[in-house]
């Protein structure tokens, strides 16, 4: 079995900040907006190097989304930055009408997604954002897994014409994807080959899935781990190819099981290849204060939970 190790941990939001800084140097049309959270979003380098292309909006996310839509008229490629909660639920109608329905080329970049925001608690820990965004016609939804992939995704979405939701987080997590790996929107990445169970994971759960595959391997279970960094459009072919071999699947995400990756996968399987599925996700609940590690354990989003779900789904074959 192919195993993954790491030498360094870093937050995915820094991948966004460094990707944005690179875009600042390479693409003169890229502009950035922020609603009073530039240090949290790691936007400092872009701002320092491109002060004229940065728009500080203040604490006014609705206005930020509208201004971003307007900036596209004139050929700019706006990247908005705030927490995932304030990037989605707070401004859903602004995104729906002024960006998605209007077909504007805005990149909605959302940090501190999910439980791993930690101590601030449920007011800030959105677990519904993937669902909100994937339901909008024409919206691309991306949730990369580590620093390198988030940086590559940030750079890649500037070349994509149309609205994008890019979701990343606050905690330091292992860097295990290659720094030079090109990011292809909508193209899943198979990380391990396996025959007993398919595990498709997104965001921070990809590393947990890899750790789970080690636990399973020790028990003689062969798991195929797939990194679904793009939830929409979903790489249906990669999922169908894998489950046609393993005959069962676990989906893993730092999100509510209502509306998340798991339901997107279930829709594909139900219509094309009905397959037993277990969901590693939060179960229609709000989060709470705690350290990221404590929360991932308490809400069943750690490697142990993924491994248990795999064993459970294998029994249902």
């Amino acid at each position, binding site marked *: 079995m192919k195993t993954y190790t790491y030498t360094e941990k870093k937050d995915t939001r820094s991948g966004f900040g460094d990707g944005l800084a690179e875009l600042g140097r390479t693409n003169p049309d890229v502009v950035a907006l922020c609603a009073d959270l530039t240090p949290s979003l790691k936007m400092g380098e872009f701002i320092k190097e491109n002060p004229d292309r940065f728009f500080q909006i203040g604490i006014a996310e609705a206005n930020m989304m*509208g201004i971003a839509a307007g900036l596209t008229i*004139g050929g700019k490629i706006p990247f908005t930055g705030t927490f995932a909660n304030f990037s989605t639920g707070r401004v859903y*109608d602004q995104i729906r009408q002024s960006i998605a329905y209007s077909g504007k080329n805005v990149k909605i970049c959302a940090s501190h997604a999910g439980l791993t925001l930690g101590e601030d608690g449920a007011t800030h820990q959105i677990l519904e954002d993937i669902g909100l965004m994937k339901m909008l016609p024409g919206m691309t939804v991306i949730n990369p897994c580590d620093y390198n992939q988030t940086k590559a995704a940030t750079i890649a979405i500037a070349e994509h014409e149309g609205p994008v939701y890019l979701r990343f987080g606050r905690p330091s997590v292992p860097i295990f994807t290659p720094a030079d790996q090109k990011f292809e929107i909508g193209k899943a990445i198979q990380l391990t080959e396996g025959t007993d169970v398919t595990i498709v994971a997104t965001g921070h759960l990809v590393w947990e899935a890899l750790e789970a595959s080690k636990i399973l391997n020790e028990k003689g279970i062969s798991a195929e781990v797939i990194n679904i960094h793009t939830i929409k459009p979903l790489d249906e072919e990669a999922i169908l190819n894998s489950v046609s071999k393993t005959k069962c699947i676990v989906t893993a995400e730092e999100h509510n099981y209502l509306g998340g990756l798991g339901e997107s996968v279930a829709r594909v399987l139900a219509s094309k290849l009905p397959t037993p599925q277990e969901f590693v996700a939060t179960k229609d609940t709000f989060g709470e204060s705690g350290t990221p590690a404590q929360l991932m354990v308490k809400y069943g989003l750690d490697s142990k939970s993924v491994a248990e779900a795999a064993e459970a789904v294998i029994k249902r074959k």
Partner: protein
Amino acid sequence: MSNTQQLNDLAVQVRRDILRMVHKVNSGHPGGSLGCTEFLVALYNEIMDRKEGFDMDGIGEDLFFLSNGHISPVFYSVLARAGYFPVEELSTFRLIDSRLQGHPTTHEGLPGVRIASGSLGQGMSVALGAAQAKKLNNDSHLVYSLHGDGELQEGQNWEAIMYASAKNVDNIICTVDLNGQQIDGPTTKVLFMGDLKGKFEAFGWDVVEIIDGNNIEAILKGMELAKSKTGQGKPVCVLLRTEMGHGVDFMMHTHEWHGKAPNDEQLENALSQNPETLGDY
């Protein structure tokens, strides 16, 4: 087009278009549309510097954003008669497979429309973004927008109003249609907004008032003054006092015709008050 008579003739024809459009599908918003007819006719045919044809980016020309999208009948008629699309297409308003959706949208690719609007309170933010894009592009042209007075009850407007002056967005002229009416009655009764001129000025805007917002000459004069105030570090607001339902006696002095279409008899009466000038579609 500079002759006031020509603009007035066009306004009468636009009025006929509005009435016939909403009558045909027995839906749509004639009241606010009729009230803003002179303004939009003057804006598109005299005030704005527009290029031939239409491209989304609109670099090198003035731009307009309609925030109160429900007055789509007047917007569509003015766009068609300014040459953005064939006037015959006005007959498809609100019908299945039409580019003339109930509220304006870019989704069907209708030339002249740069943003979807209808859910209120979003247009000023969009206009500000477009104005800032013009500055980045070293494009000295202006951005215009139109908003309902009731629409100012939406909080996003005040985020935008605060931002515009703080960031010195001085290449924008936002016009508020002060017709004093909204769905549930007079704005003074639904949610009294007090001294709007004072509010805009307190937020750091230059304010121009047009008292007779249904008079072409008053509009031209007021908008010329508004233009002269751009480029001086402050955003510019025009408070345009209009009469909802203007030009049709039984639609004036009431909010009843905000979102109601005339029946056959009412249409005939309304059209007789606005005799054909440039030819019906």
